[in-house]
């Protein structure tokens, strides 16, 4: 296993910039998840690491060695493709061992290594079958085994779970993590699913439009987002965002009055946005807080999400009403659609963003 580093990577296709000066270090044995929306450059970054794309500028280092000019096979990386890329005409065993056959590894040794890899992922009983006879999850295991048998310095995984159904995805997430721990492997894992990112990664790197937004452990990404984009991208349902306006009695975000945190003045001269996560809004039927009307009730098992419109039904103008927020409530509260509830924004759970740059000015505590 080895470290993997992107140094100043820039990738340009004609006029389009896919990656803009990416600097990212993956530690030895770390599972780094690169997450972002479509077009963020995450797949490009992976393919650059693999050697399937040439860089416009910058360097890729694996184990300290500069591999930027080297073709994929010389970099000692293994890749698991989104579509698994299994050879339809070969058996599972031949699929796994294809690299060994190309390198003319003696048959007995090759068979042994294939069997070992297959057992690690749990498909040892299927070595004689063909890909078309396997289910999606089984095919994915074969793709993993093929990567394993190469004994690479780093694993590159391109959205490996996105072709699986929801339940299988949860199962495979756990298995991948188990595999990672067992092997102590350096893994670069690309996904658009932020749940996968938060649950699986040792560290998470968030990309947007080819630029790195933030790198850190999942907890840090979730609780201390560097900017509005990261805050809104991570967490489901997404963070509520309310513009901050100057009212007669001070600053308000929607109907919520704002108090400056102790000891620091408001950042002057900037437009601001307030962010609060759904789980931090306190909703009661007739407790403290501002009134809100229930628009949609989503029941998700043990949690319920309420889509609310702030302000009493009938809208009093000027009170910052009419804005939509989503709140997460526990089991007990099941208001009817159209009914009125009260929403409170407790102290210390709000984020303050610069409305123009998106930068996080004040983190929640």
């Amino acid at each position: 296993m080895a470290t993997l580093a992107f140094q100043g990577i820039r990738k340009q296709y004609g006029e389009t910039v896919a990656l803009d000066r990416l600097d990212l270090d993956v530690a030895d044995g770390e599972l780094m998840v690169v997450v972002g929306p479509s077009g963020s450059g995450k797949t490009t970054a992976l393919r650059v690491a693999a050697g399937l794309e040439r860089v416009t500028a910058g360097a890729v280092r694996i184990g300290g060695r500069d591999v930027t000019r080297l073709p994929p096979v010389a970099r000692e990386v293994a890749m698991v493709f989104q579509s698994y890329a299994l050879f339809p005409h070969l058996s599972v065993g031949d699929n796994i061992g294809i690299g060994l056959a190309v390198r003319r590894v003696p048959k007995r040794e090759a068979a042994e290594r294939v069997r070992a890899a297959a057992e690690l992922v749990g498909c040892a009983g299927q070595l004689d079958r063909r890909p078309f006879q396997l289910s999606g999850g089984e095919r994915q295991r074969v793709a993993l085994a093929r990567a394993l048998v190469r004994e690479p310095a780093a694993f590159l995984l391109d959205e490996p779970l996105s072709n699986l159904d929801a339940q299988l995805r949860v199962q495979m997430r756990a298995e991948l993590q188990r595999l990672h721990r067992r092997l102590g492997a350096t893994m670069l894992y690309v996904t658009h699913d932020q749940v996968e990112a938060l649950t699986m990664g040792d560290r998470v790197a968030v990309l947007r439009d080819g630029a790195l937004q933030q790198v850190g452990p999942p907890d840090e990404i979730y609780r201390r987002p560097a900017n509005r984009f990261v805050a809104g991208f991570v967490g489901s349902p997404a963070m509520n965002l309310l513009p901050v306006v100057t009212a007669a009695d001070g600053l308000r975000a929607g109907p919520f009055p704002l108090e400056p945190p102790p000891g620091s003045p408001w950042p002057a001269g900037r437009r601001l946005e307030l962010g609060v996560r759904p789980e931090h809004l306190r909703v009661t039927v007739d407790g403290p807080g501002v009134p809100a009307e229930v628009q949609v009730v989503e029941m998700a098992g043990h949690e319920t999400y309420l889509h609310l419109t702030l302000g009493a039904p009938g809208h009093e103008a000027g009170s910052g009403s009419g804005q939509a927020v989503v709140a997460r409530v526990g089991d007990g509260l099941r208001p009817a659609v159209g009914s009125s509830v009260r929403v409170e924004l407790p102290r210390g759970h709000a984020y303050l963003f610069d409305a123009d740059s998106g930068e996080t000015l004040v983190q929640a505590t």
Partner: protein
Amino acid sequence: MSTASRTAWRHLPALLVAVGFVAPLVFMVTGSLRQAGLPPPRSPELLPSPVAFGNYPRAFELVDIPRYTLNSLVVVAAAVPLTVLCASWAGFAMSRLPRRSAGALVAVSLVALMVPLTALLVSRFAMFRILRLTDTWWPLIAPSLMGTSPFYVLLFYWSFRRLPAELFEACRLEGMRPLAVWRRVAMPLVRPVAVAVAVFAFVDTWSNFLDPLVYLFDERKFTVPLGLRALSTLDPNNYPLFLAGAVTATAPVIGALLYVQRFFLQEFRGSGWLGR
């Protein structure tokens, strides 16, 4: 309309058409079974009476059909594998090239397809004459270098292009060089196309009349079509005789078609005639 009559309505024209197309071939066979030397028929007859198979051995006596068949087989044995190899190599290489280069080669191939063979006849002959290769089989085998026809190259190109790109990327990651990729992955996945090209190349080479006519002078080197023509000039009015020769020349090719037709004429799916 009832189901029965709708079926009939659908089948009848198709049946008539099929009969119309097969009829000449049927007549070819039945005509060859007529006893030679009898006065010509006065009325149309489907099957002559008496049925005589004697024309076949007679044809074999008059011209050296076994030898010509052997010659044709030798040419075919050289030309067909060479065609499949060169056409699939070229098609594969084109499919791995960047889009623009591949596009240029496709355009060149299409233009080459349009060039009439007659236009090249005289010049090719002059070229082979200068190389002293006339009266040999080399001019007959040479077109296999370009896959016999640019069309077969294009056929392979389109087939390889249809394979998922990630498959080839996986090959690159495993360190496979293009030839290994062609051998281990690409060709096994286009087997029906390769078989079809082999069969079409067989038909083209076997039936080729113009090139043997122009290049071969020594009767012992004749291929079957040329031998058939010789037979027909020996006894121009003895039609059962030369029909027997025609049947002998045609049978292998019909057999090849019947074998390959299930890839192209039955298995038509909406994805085009390369669908599997």
